[in-house]
């Protein structure tokens, strides 16, 4: 393609947008509305999954040892556990720490009666935190098989509940996102169709003069992609400012739950949302204009 043809195509694409400003605005608004819904939905889902993940990270499996097991063996077991892929963190709790913790939590001043005795003398343990709660069962079987391990405590109910919630969120969000995309493609192809039927005559003239499909289509495709880009940029800008405001509002209203509600920062959300929205916007503009022009181009 010659440079002059390339610039001509770009220029025509931009001119087309202004020439059909109402149609362009309608298309941009449609894409913006769909991507705003998508962005809001994605932000909610991403935060929900983040909160669930944080909760998962708080779920620990506790490993107790055989009576009188040597410190060396305990350290060895610690290293073995740390090597496991599903393990995110291992904490060693000595018998003293376990007893102090128990006293503080349950006995208070009554603990004095025990003097220097430590009824939990054999309660040294590892608190093992997981990357993924769904792997808890596998890890527990492994831990139970280690020589020197007396007992493994786990919270099966928490694990299965969190895994279930996570799956539900993943499936339902995938479903809703697919529906949203289908609706937006339908709306956009309708808008593009209206715009193109107005210019059917223009396409006909171009074809009679001997324009190739590529030459006829290029300005429309450029136009579609610019509309898609603007259509994506508007809701992204809006979400960028709204997100922080909403997060601040929720955090201040529900400060009691601040430990549980750990939100993603706007930057974290936008790492995914920005490229995905731009690709969807520009992609819809490209596919919408490409396919709709194709219908009218075979003259």
């Amino acid at each position: 393609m010659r440079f002059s043809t390339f610039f001509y195509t770009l220029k025509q694409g931009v001119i087309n947008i202004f020439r059909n400003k109402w149609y362009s605005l309608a298309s941009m608004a449609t894409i913006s509305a769909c991507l705003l819904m998508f962005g809001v939905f994605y932000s909610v889902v991403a935060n929900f999954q983040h909160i669930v993940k944080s909760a998962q990270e708080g779920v620990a499996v506790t490993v107790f040892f055989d009576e009188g097991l040597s410190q060396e063996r305990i350290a060895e077991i610690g290293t073995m556990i740390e090597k496991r892929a599903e393990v995110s963190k291992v904490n060693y709790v000595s018998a003293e720490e376990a007893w102090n913790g128990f006293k503080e939590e349950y006995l208070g001043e009554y603990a004095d009666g025990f003097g220097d005795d430590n009824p939990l003398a054999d309660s040294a343990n590892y608190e093992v935190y997981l990357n993924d709660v769904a792997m808890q069962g596998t890890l527990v079987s492994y831990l139970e098989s280690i020589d020197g391990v007396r007992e493994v405590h786990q919270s099966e109910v928490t694990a299965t509940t969190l895994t279930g919630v996570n799956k539900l969120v993943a499936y339902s969000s995938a479903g809703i996102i697919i529906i949203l995309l289908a609706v937006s493609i339908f709306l956009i192809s309708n808008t593009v169709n209206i715009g193109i039927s107005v210019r059917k005559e223009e396409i006909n003239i171009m074809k009679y003069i001997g324009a190739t499909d590529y030459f006829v289509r290029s300005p429309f495709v450029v136009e579609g992609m610019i509309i898609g880009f603007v259509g994506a940029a508007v809701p992204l800008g809006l979400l960028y400012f709204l997100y922080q405001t909403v997060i601040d509002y929720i955090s201040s209203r529900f400060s009691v739950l601040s430990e549980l509600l750990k939100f993603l920062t706007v930057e974290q959300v936008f790492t995914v949302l920005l490229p995905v929205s731009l690709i969807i916007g520009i992609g819809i503009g490209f596919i919408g204009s490409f396919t709709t022009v194709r219908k009218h181009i075979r003259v």
Partner: protein
Amino acid sequence: MITLDHVSKSYSTGAPALNDVSLNIEQGEFVFIVGDSGSGKSTMIKLLLRELLPTSGNITVNGVNVAALKHRQIPKFRRNIGVVFQDFRLLKDRNVYENVAFAQRVVQTPTKEIRRNVPAILSTVGLAGKYKARPRQLSGGEQQRVALARALVNKPPILLADEPTGNLDPKNSWEIMKLLEEINEAGTTVLVVTHNREIVNAMKKRVITMNKGVIISDEKEGSYIDEI
């Protein structure tokens, strides 16, 4: 230059639009095709432009077997044929210069050459002073001249004019026909589909008369034949 060899074209319903038509037009000829509505003139133009395919028979234009063209070869083929329509078919939102330049852009003529060629062809059709005007600011005759300039700027060997004077008054009609004659004298093969009896009779050119899909007369210095 243009050969139709036992060409027929049928649409899905009704009688065939063209029925076993054969004709030969030499390079540099000026030919009128006349006939009533439904005689098959428009179908013939569409076949020559490869907008339609014949049901049977062969069509050769400028040495190209039209029916054998693949979709992607059609644009290049059409660049050898300038076309002018009754309704001008100009791009309404572009000025005169841009309308003519568009035909050159399509064939990727360098901008420098476009700047030289477009004013030259506009002065040939007598519109040099109106290059900035939009189609709606021009009279019918002027719009048809723009269409003619657009059809000719790439110097095609063949010019097809489908009712070029259909929307024009007698004075403008004559001016357009004079232009077509000049273009023909410069070497372009010109094929004019028309209803304009006065012009056909006055110009003493080859006249092919069609009726119900067949050629009923083909005369070297012919005249308009009345309703059959």
